């Protein structure tokens, strides 16, 4: 198979058999559908994963917000306890702390707020613990403070008070009454300031308290001449004990206030800041996650559309190639069979490289073509036979015609001279005279006779005589016109039939013949002359009458001396014949 033939096979047909081509197209379509389905599923999965991340972040955001709220409420409850001594505040702080700690630890363990937030969460937890520790200690110290006030301070205070005389019993003008009043007043101020430690969270400036004690002591000094020595010593000792207790209370309250105002405050502040930052960080992460989802969706959508487009294109192109492979082959087969039906015996260029349905059809076409070739061969052989027969028949016919023509020529020709014989001349005369009669056309006849031929024969023999006759026939033929008919009538007599010629022309023509012949030297005889009788056709003439008249004119010419031309008179008027030329001896 040559390469141009090969190139006529569609690519698809070269690669796959028919059934596989169809299957392949279907497979490709199914494959495309599967790919699109898979891509869509992947897109859903990825988006869902991103969405889960986003949801986790939203949860974390809510959690961090709840930490913030928890921190605020802890601080508020702590403040309630510190400022208003609400025991429920302390309980609430403990509860909020426990809940917050649990939630924070969980979040830290689960990395709920995403990577990067762990450090802040840990710090938040640290400060939560710090705050709670400080608060627990503050509660403890406050209880200790209350206890110290209720027991140590109260007893030291009552010891001082018990030593002082009752105000009701003391007359205003009694000795030392003023000093006692002053001491009582200072003690009262000290008691008030101490009580305030618990409720106002304010500490009376140390100097002020010292002033109260100093005031009490100087009032006591005023009693030196009114009160007994041991009483004064006892009161002074009681005041010193009270001052000692008071100093301790002051230290405790300072430590307590430091915890509340400095330690707890800083932890609370740090927690707020950390929660704030965490919130911002997570909000940022949420924004990023949203962006990511948006971008992912966008990318996947584009990819899916591209996949669909490219896939469809591939399926379309493949489908077209496959379909083209099928239709092209079917079209070629149709063409082939049409040609075969028309009797084509051209070689089947169509080929199928596979043993498929097309292949079967191809083989059928080849068988068809072989049958065609066989029939054509038979036909050709028959035609060849026929043609040889026909040519033989034509040949025979031609041979027969030639024979006929020769026969006819022989029948009309004088053997000796080769000009028409008497039979041909008679037929021609019949024919010509009939024509002249029918169309009233002129016609003349010359009757020629060799002068003294008998003497030639006698003197030179018949052979020479015959040669002379042949030569005369030849010479006369030279002078004849196209339509003139010339023949040997018999012996040494010749006849010339001149159609369409009459009168003067006839005579002139006869004279030309006579002169031409007379001028020639016929060896060995020498000059030979002719006597010519001329007869012109007239209406009543038949062949015999015309010949007769010509013969009569010839006779006259002979009679008038030979070597001359004599015109026969018309039959009715019978005009006298005229001498045409000078008589000559012959």
């Amino acid at each position, binding site marked *: 198979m040559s390469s141009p033939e090969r190139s006529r096979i569609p690519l698809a047909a070269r690669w796959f058999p028919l059934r596989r081509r169809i299957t392949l197209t279907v497979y490709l379509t199914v494959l495309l559908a599967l790919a699109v389905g898979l891509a869509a599923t992947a897109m859903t999965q990825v988006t869902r994963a991103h969405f889960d991340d986003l949801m986790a972040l939203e949860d974390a955001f809510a959690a961090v917000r709840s930490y913030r709220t928890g921190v605020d409420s802890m*601080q508020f409850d702590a403040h309630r306890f510190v400022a208003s001594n609400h025991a429920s505040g302390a309980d609430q702080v403990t509860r909020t702390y426990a809940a917050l700690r649990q939630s924070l630890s969980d979040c830290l363990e689960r990395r709920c707020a995403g990577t990067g937030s762990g450090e802040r969460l840990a710090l938040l937890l640290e400060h939560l613990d*710090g705050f709670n520790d400080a608060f627990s*200690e503050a509660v403890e110290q406050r209880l200790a403070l209350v206890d110290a006030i209720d027991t140590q301070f109260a007893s030291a205070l009552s010891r001082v008070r018990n030593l002082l005389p009752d105000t009701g019993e003391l007359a205003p003008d009694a000795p030392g009454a003023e000093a006692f009043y002053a001491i009582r007043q200072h003690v009262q101020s000290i008691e008030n300031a101490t009580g305030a430690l618990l409720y106002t*969270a*304010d*500490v009376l*400036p*140390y*100097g002020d308290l010292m002033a109260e004690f100093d005031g009490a002591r100087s009032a006591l000094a005023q009693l030196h001449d009114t009160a007994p020595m041991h009483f004064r010593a006892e009161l002074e000792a009681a005041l010193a004990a009270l001052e000692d207790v008071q*100093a*301790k209370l002051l*230290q*405790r309250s*300072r*430590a307590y*206030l*430091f*915890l*509340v*105002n*400095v*330690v*707890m*405050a*800083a932890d*609370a*502040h*740090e927690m707020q*800041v950390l929660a704030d930052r965490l919130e911002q960080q997570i909000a940022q992460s949420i924004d990023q996650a949203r962006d990511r989802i948006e971008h992912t969706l966008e990318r996947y959508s584009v990819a899916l559309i591209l996949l669909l487009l490219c896939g469809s294109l591939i399926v379309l192109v493949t489908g077209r190639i496959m379909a083209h492979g099928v239709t092209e082959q079917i079209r070629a087969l149709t063409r082939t069979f049409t040609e075969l039906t028309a009797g084509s015996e051209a070689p089947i260029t169509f080929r199928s490289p596979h043993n498929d349905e097309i292949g079967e059809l191809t083989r059928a076409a080849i068988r068809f073509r072989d049958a065609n070739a066989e029939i054509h061969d038979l036909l050709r052989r028959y035609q060849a036979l026929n043609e040889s027969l026909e040519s033989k028949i034509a040949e025979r016919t031609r041979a027969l015609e030639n024979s006929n023509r020769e026969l006819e020529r022989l029948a009309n020709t004088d053997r000796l001279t080769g000009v028409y014989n008497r039979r041909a001349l008679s037929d021609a005369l019949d024919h010509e005279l009939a024509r002249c009669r029918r169309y009233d056309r002129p016609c003349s006849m010359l009757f020629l006779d060799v002068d003294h031929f008998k003497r030639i024969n006698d003197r030179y023999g018949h052979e020479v005589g015959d040669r002379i006759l042949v030569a005369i026939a030849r010479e006369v033929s030279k002078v004849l016109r196209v339509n003139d008919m010339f023949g040997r009538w018999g012996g040494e007599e010749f006849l010339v039939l001149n159609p369409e010629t009459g009168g003067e022309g006839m005579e002139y023509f006869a004279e030309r013949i006579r002169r031409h012949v007379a001028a020639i030297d016929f060896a060995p005889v020498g000059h030979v002359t002719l006597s010519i009788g001329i007869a012109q056709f007239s209406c009543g003439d038949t062949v015999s009458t015309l010949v007769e008249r010509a013969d009569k004119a010839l006779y006259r010419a002979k009679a008038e001396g030979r070597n001359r031309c004599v015109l026969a008179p018309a039959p009715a008027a019978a005009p006298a014949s005229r001498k045409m030329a000078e008589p000559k001896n012959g």
Partner: protein
Amino acid sequence: MQCAACAPAVAAFPAIIRARDTGPTLRVLGTHATLHEPIREQAERDLGIRIEFEPGGSARVLLRAATEPSSFDLYEQWSDSIRVLWRAGTIQPIDVRRLTHWGEINSLSKTGRITPEAPTGAGDVPNTILYVQPDGSLGATPRARISFLPYVHNVDSFGYDSRVIPPGEPYREESWGWLLDPAYAGRVALVNAPSIGVFDLALAARARGLMDFADIGAMTREEIDALFEVAIAYKLDGHFRAFWRSVPQSAALMRSGDVAIESMFSPAAAMLRADGVPCLYAAPKEGYRAWHGVMCLSRACRGEREELAYAYMNWWLSGWPGAYIARQGYYISNPERSRPFMAEHEWDYWYRGLPAERPLAGPDGRIVARPGETRRGGAYVERFSHIAVWNTIMPTYDLSVRRWSELVLA
């Protein structure tokens, strides 16, 4: 250098074992600034006694010291706690005649001036609360009994991240006012201690011309209120990022980038530099906030414990501890005694303010100064010649504590 100190202890080896087994344990209450495990171990080795360190937060240890004298033998803290403790009566006077190196203690602790020309600074200058006067009060007049053993001291300022804030020239450009510069809003931190932080705020407010004080070391109630109004206004504008409660926290804040400038203790600056953060520990033109460490003897410390306490106090001034704390940037009151315990280049860097010849390691072995680096603020004498104020518990302290939470939570 350790062996110089251990030589006598090694010689007395059997006695040490006995002492450890039978003798009382010395209980030292204090803060993380000086209660370091290497110091305790070294002291135990050198003295052959058992020592227990109980470090804690300033407020807590002060409360313990002020209310439970029987729970400790020695108390190490800052000079600003002396008035409280002395008033509380929980510490007893120290007899200078029992202090081996008393004579070596320099003029800063004894007179308040490192040189005769140096200014003393405002607030409780150490010598004014050092000597126990005949009437039981504390005063500047030299006496044989003192309220505390002068030992560790330093000057504090603020640290700043030189990547964020362009470095200023020490004593000329660096200013406390930077702490309140709105340009650094949101990236400023303060120490969470009213007795210290209030001075940082006051120095900053005065440097920026926001207010002035009759005596910055003894602010009146009105001045305190005015100062807090200023600070709270800043806080409301989001100026302060944090109020730190420990040195590691202050370092973490700057390391994370949250904070660019903050009141700072020198070990934090050393930690940051070791971590590669170019933190500069400023030498403010207004002067430093100085502090003086105090070692106090519990009123309840008697007999054998008292002997141990005096031995420990004498050990502290014997050289090794001074060299140890020099490496974290602190000074000792008798520096010459510590000099043999330090390499020449260490002494030059820490005390003389000369460029480091080779990398210098801190107490934890991490490099805190690279070759060519100099200590900001210069030599010991130069730095202590620029004192603005001493850490002090002012009469208005309680008010500042109450207002502190207002500031922090504003």
